[in-house]
């Protein structure tokens, strides 16, 4: 079979960092190749060189057996290479059709009717469902992805590169995407899918290429390998893939949320009659399609989001009287004696001050304890040093701005600070997003530790496999409503996927 694309000895460095070192790879026509590797292993850099965003320092790229030089996204288009980025590159206020035709040469006047017809034709051929005249801001994540894929197909791409396409999809949507990818494969397209979800690799790919720290490790046939072998190749040593789940001991009600209703500033109902109880000594998972109210729920509990009606009551561990948290801001919640830790989704915006060092960030939670107008930096320094040591944060010094740390280290700093306050309730929103396997396991471990210390842990996650392995119970949100609370030990992924899209058929929770 002929090679659609072949990379020979590609090397790319950024300053002193070697992102790709002597990588050779080939992609056949009509196959799906999974590119597997941890964060920072150079997968995206490698693919960006094929799609014209970066230019390799050395090495050759061959398309259809001819050596080519790809210096811009335009060159890539003309060679029939299309990349679907992880972060969609779409213009919100344009329609799908306008986004698809953007930047293409052609008659000065834009013939929208003809364009729509062409798009419908592509949709029909591969099995997409898309309204060409729908605005992007009205679309769900999976619809946006569809637009991205059609965009590259419309440009005549024969080689498609998808960067973590399923990260934002429900299992059902992911299956639909895989069906489409298989249709494309039948049509002779060559497809690269970048991912670190092993079960997807096993399901969809024909071959798997593994990168580790910028080095090419090997390419294997999917049918001849298994997840454990792939992980070992990816990490470089044997890693256990099982997330431990300590048994729940003396669970007591800690936080009771009743009929919580919140409305966004645009007047959209973001939380609709949400009720649940978080118990001490257990991890309560929160699942849902992105934008189903997870962020609002966490912020409402933390006292950061306006609440229209409902109650949030905190039951102290010493058996005291329940305390109402509604109508209080984070400071007065703390003054109430409620030790609540919140690890927000936006780590460097809401969680930490990006431009300050670890010491300053540690002090954000404690500076009020000082006396007089001057701050006492010593406790902050001590805590920062503690966190560095205990959580193995790799940073040049405790005063390096946290924005310069890698994603995993940033998360450790944030979680380290929150845990230091010995919380009785800890909420973590997408704490492992963007983290590699090792860092993720550190975070799981820390959360389990808190669980064993009898804290009530609320874990908002997107990877259903992780939710099912780590949590004790899982609450599923759909369009701001609770569509179900299931026992994580017995629930299945399919069950969760259904709950995520169910409630009253409303699935358009994607806006915010």
């Amino acid at each position, binding site marked *: 079979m002929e090679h659609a694309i072949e990379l020979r000895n590609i090397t790319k460095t950024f300053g002193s960092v070697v992102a790709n070192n002597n990588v050779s790879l080939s992609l056949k026509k009509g196959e799906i190749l999974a590119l597997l590797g941890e964060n920072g292993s150079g997968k995206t850099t490698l693919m960006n060189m094929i799609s014209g965003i970066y230019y390799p320092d050395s090495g050759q790229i061959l398309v259809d057996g001819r050596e080519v030089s790809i210096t811009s996204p335009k060159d890539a*288009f003309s060679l029939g290479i299309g990349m679907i980025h992880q972060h969609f*590159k779409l213009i919100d206020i344009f329609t799908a059709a306008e986004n698809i035709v953007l*930047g293409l040469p052609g008659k*000065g*006047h834009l013939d929208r009717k003809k364009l729509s017809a062409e798009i419908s034709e592509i949709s029909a051929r591969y099995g997409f469902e898309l309204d060409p005249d729908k605005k992007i801001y009205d679309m769900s994540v999976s619809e946006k992805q569809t637009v991205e894929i059609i965009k590259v197909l419309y440009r005549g791409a024969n080689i498609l590169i998808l960067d973590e396409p399923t990260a934002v999809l429900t299992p059902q949507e992911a299956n639909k995407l895989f069906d489409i990818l298989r249709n494309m494969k039948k049509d002779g397209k060559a497809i690269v899918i970048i991912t670190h979800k092993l079960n997807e690799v096993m399901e969809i790919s024909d071959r798997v290429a593994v990168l580790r720290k910028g080095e090419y490790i090997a390419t294997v046939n999917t049918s001849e390998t298994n997840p454990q072998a792939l992980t070992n190749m990816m990490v470089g040593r044997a890693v256990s893939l099982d997330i431990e789940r300590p048994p729940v001991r003396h669970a007591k009600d800690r936080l009771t949320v009743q009929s919580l209703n919140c409305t966004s500033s645009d007047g959209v109902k973001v939380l609709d009659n949400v009720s649940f109880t978080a118990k001490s000594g257990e991890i309560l998972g929160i699942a849902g399609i992105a934008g189903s109210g997870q962020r609002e729920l966490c912020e409402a509990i933390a006292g950061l989001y306006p609440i229209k009606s409902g109650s949030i009551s905190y039951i102290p561990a010493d058996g005291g009287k329940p305390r109402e948290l509604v109508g209080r801001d984070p400071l007065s919640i703390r003054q109430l004696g409620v030790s609540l830790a919140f690890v927000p989704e936006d780590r460097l915006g809401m969680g930490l001050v990006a431009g300050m060092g670890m010491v300053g960030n540690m002090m954000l939670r404690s500076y009020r304890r000082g006396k007089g107008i001057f701050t006492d930096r010593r406790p902050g320094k001590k805590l920062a040093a503690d966190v560095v040591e205990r959580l193995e944060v790799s940073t040049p010094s405790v005063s390096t701005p946290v924005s310069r740390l890698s994603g995993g280290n940033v998360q450790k700093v944030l979680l380290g600070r929150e845990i230091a306050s010995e919380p009785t309730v800890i909420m973590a929103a997408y704490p492992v997003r963007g983290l590699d396997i090792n860092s993720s396991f550190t975070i799981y471990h820390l959360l389990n530790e808190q669980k064993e210390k009898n804290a009530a842990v609320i874990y908002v996650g997107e990877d259903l496999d992780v939710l099912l392995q780590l949590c004790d119970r899982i609450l599923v949100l759909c369009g701001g409503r609770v569509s179900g609370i299931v026992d994580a030990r017995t629930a299945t992924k399919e069950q969760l996927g259904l709950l995520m899209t169910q409630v009253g058929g409303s699935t358009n929770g994607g806006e915010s």
Partner: protein
Amino acid sequence: MTMLNFFCAAVLASCPLLFGTLGESLTEKSGNLNLGVEGMMFMGAVAGLGGSYYYEKSAENPVAIISVLIAIGCAFLCAALGALIYSVITITFRANQNVTGLALTIFGIGFGNFVGEAMSNAAGGYVVVSDLTKTAFNTPLFPALSTIPIVGKLFFSYNFMVYLSLVCAIVLAVFLKYTRVGLNLRSVGENPATADAAGINVERYKYLATVIGGGITGLGGLYIVMNSANGVGGVWVHNCISGYGWLSVALVIFAMWNPSRAVFCAFIVGALSVMRLYISLGIPDQIYNIFPYIATVIVLIFVSLRKKRENQPPASLGLAYFREER
């Protein structure tokens, strides 16, 4: 009859605002917030006046149409030059757009007044174009039609600059809505990274939109200096632009970056600015004079309350684009 006269005066007063608004709308659609409109109007005004003046002085038998074309050309080019300076600083060197725009305004005001005064001194008192050019700028474009009762006065009694500004508005509206290049330009202002990935040359679009937009605002300045509705025309008056540029910047928001809406918005503000001459409310003149500004403030408040996504400013407005930034 008063209302008819009021309407006509309002149209005349709105013309420079419309040029300013259209030029700035085009600029902002590329994501560049150029606060130098006031300065570019000064530059256009003084260059247009100077162009006509020196043409008349050097030609034996000046021809009106050539004088007009020279004035338009000079005004456009000089204001575009101001916009080019702004573009180099903000697009190529990625300096802060607000600061650069304010600097351009200060520079333009100084440049206009300095060159204007210098020309006046050289001319021995004041620099003024001949009646030939003045008439060309101030007589109805359709003299025959303008004699039709009422309708003629309402629609056909204006000078060519008014019609030019309306044509500009229509062309711009069609360009942005129905052409590929217009779509590409809008994408640059919304999300330059996306436009870049789609193969659009972001820098080129930004440069062209900003420079051409700047040139269009210069025509507004030319209109102000040539228009004799206030009694004088075709002569350099110190500080003649006096805030029209700033009103234009506000009008862009009022019109929500939409050229066809700009026509109506400019008309309303134009009407408010000449109201005191036609409608007596028995209040001091100074209060009339602040009407356009009060209206602007009120409108800005209401516009900020509106939530429709299409009516929001271009998403990347005011931000420099740098491809390597991730």
